[in-house]
């Protein structure tokens, strides 16, 4: 699929679209927006992306809700999105860059199998109910353990790797690129398992916009969704270019980005079709209810959470990819 980078008359009237990304610098999983920008996919759709990075999904969401219209699309993880939804703000998921979990559990040398986690200290930034702990719990449950069999250490995000390096924790869930970075620092660390394989039905993140923006300029958002879907597909087809862009923006070294790319692409993190299918979304919302992020009484419905139309239009235009277990 040849990408004609920003060619034609469209270039003259590019519309500025503000993106709020949830991490600084991004991890490789967040890369599709930059890919779309760097390779000219956005330009092709008449879009000039202005990408802002924030420290955490909630901050990105806040910029979308309150930022005076400078942000059109935020890309938070699911917990803050669902939480904000349930508080009554009119937010819609219009697409996604990852429905599966792009994280892995990294553990100290002596932990070979899931069962070895018994009695160990697991780092849980954000505490019980935060993303990291939810993932750890998933890992524990996969081998019949429960949180009572381990001890949690509520360390701060900034202290995760120092804690691993100084043996103050034995295991923690990290983004795959962070895992490889940690392993570089302490080679005895290793991956216990990828969460996408442990919890295959997880919903990781979404592109979110507000009801006002949808009413304001649906055409623009349709183009955004289409461009981002194309970017996801581009990633699978262009390893080298994606790794280049990844190195440029994630600031991880090339070998780490390459290994991460291979892991994530193998798992099929980036959806090439709709991604936000009703079963994934309702399961995701249900998980948040179980975790106590929101109460069942104010649980949003699929229709409240997702604006399905843009994705459908994109599929119609771009065609559906099939033939690989990874395509979803």
């Amino acid at each position, binding site marked *: 699929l040849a990408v004609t980078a920003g060619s034609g008359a469209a270039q003259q009237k590019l519309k500025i679209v503000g993106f709020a990304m949830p991490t600084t610098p991004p991890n490789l999983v967040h890369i599709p927006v930059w890919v779309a920008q760097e390779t000219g996919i956005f330009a092709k759709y008449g879009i000039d992306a202005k990408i802002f990075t924030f420290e955490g999904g*909630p901050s990105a969401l806040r910029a979308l809700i309150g930022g005076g219209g400078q942000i059109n699309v935020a890309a938070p993880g699911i*917990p803050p999105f669902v939480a904000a939804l349930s*508080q009554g703000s009119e937010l819609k998921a219009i697409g996604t860059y990852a429905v599966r979990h792009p994280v892995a559990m990294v553990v100290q040398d002596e932990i070979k199998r899931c069962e070895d986690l018994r009695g160990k200290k697991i780092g849980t930034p*954000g505490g019980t109910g935060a993303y990291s702990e939810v993932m750890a719990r998933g890992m524990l449950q996969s081998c019949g353990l429960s949180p009572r069999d381990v001890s949690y250490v*509520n*360390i701060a995000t900034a*202290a995760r790797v120092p804690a691993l390096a100084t043996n*103050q924790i034995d295991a923690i869930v990290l983004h795959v690129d962070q895992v490889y970075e940690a392993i570089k620092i302490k080679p005895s660390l290793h991956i216990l398992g990828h969460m996408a394989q442990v919890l295959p039905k997880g919903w990781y993140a979404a592109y979110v916009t507000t009801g006002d923006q949808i009413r304001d300029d649906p055409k623009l958002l349709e183009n955004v969704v289409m461009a981002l879907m194309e970017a996801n597909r581009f990633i699978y087809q262009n390893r080298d270019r994606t790794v280049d862009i990844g190195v440029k923006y994630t600031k991880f070294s090339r070998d780490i980005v390459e290994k991460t790319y291979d892991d994530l692409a193998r798992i099929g993190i980036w959806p090439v079709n709709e991604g936000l299918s009703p079963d994934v979304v309702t399961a995701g919302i249900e998980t948040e209810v179980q975790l106590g992020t929101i109460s069942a009484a104010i649980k949003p419905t699929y229709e409240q959470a997702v604006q399905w139309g843009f994705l459908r239009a994109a599929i119609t235009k771009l065609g559906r990819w099939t033939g690989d277990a990874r395509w979803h």
Partner: protein
Amino acid sequence: MSVAAQRGRAAGRREGAAGLSPTAIRVLSVMVGVLAWEAYGRVLHSVLFTYPSAVVRAAYELIAAGELQFYLKSSVVVLSLGLVLAIVLGIPLGVLMGRRAVIEHAVDPYVNALYATPLVAVIPVIVVWLGFQTKAKVVLVFLFCIFPILINTYQGVKNTDARLVEVARSFCSKEWRLWRDLILPSSAPFILAGIRLAIGRGLIGMVVAEFYTTITGLGYMIVQYANTFRMDRLFVPVVVLMMMGVALTGALRYLERRIAPWLYVAREE
């Protein structure tokens, strides 16, 4: 006439503003603020904001569940240890810097540099040295609190009336007596302003320390409810912190009257 002898004697003309007492003015002012917040919060009606009545309701829930008390306790321990440590070390070091040029010049660059160092840079070092638990947090709060005390004390010492220092020297005062009789009382207004600043910083430092090491206490509540957009609950620990700020400052004023009565006796006439 002795320098600053009548210092502070009604240093500002104080009007009664239609005869209202200070407390009445304070209460009125806070009430106006709370009402304005309530009105604005209801009008804005955003998930990013809340209003006092919602906060009160949330506070009631959190107190009933015992959550607030639980988290508050661990925070307060950290805060008090860090603050006391900062006072106990900051004042003597400040006086030393003010009195001994060698120490001043040797320590000065470190004070200015450390004070401008963001915590993130310090965290890994602290973690390596002190781990993640209370010890590390206390040290972080201490680092937050010490600079206002140190720098204000230093400036206060520099500002001591040289003529009174001469009097003390004339009577052959030993250095430590000079501190007690002269330097500390004369720097008291500076030091008190420093402690007042340290209280505010300490409260923030406590929360920040909780963010950056293990997340516990009020910091945990704040992070958790900020991330889940429960603004009403988020504002419960925030309002608690505000009230602690006001209360601690009030307590400081009370202490001031007890340990530095001359500052107040003087204002009465």
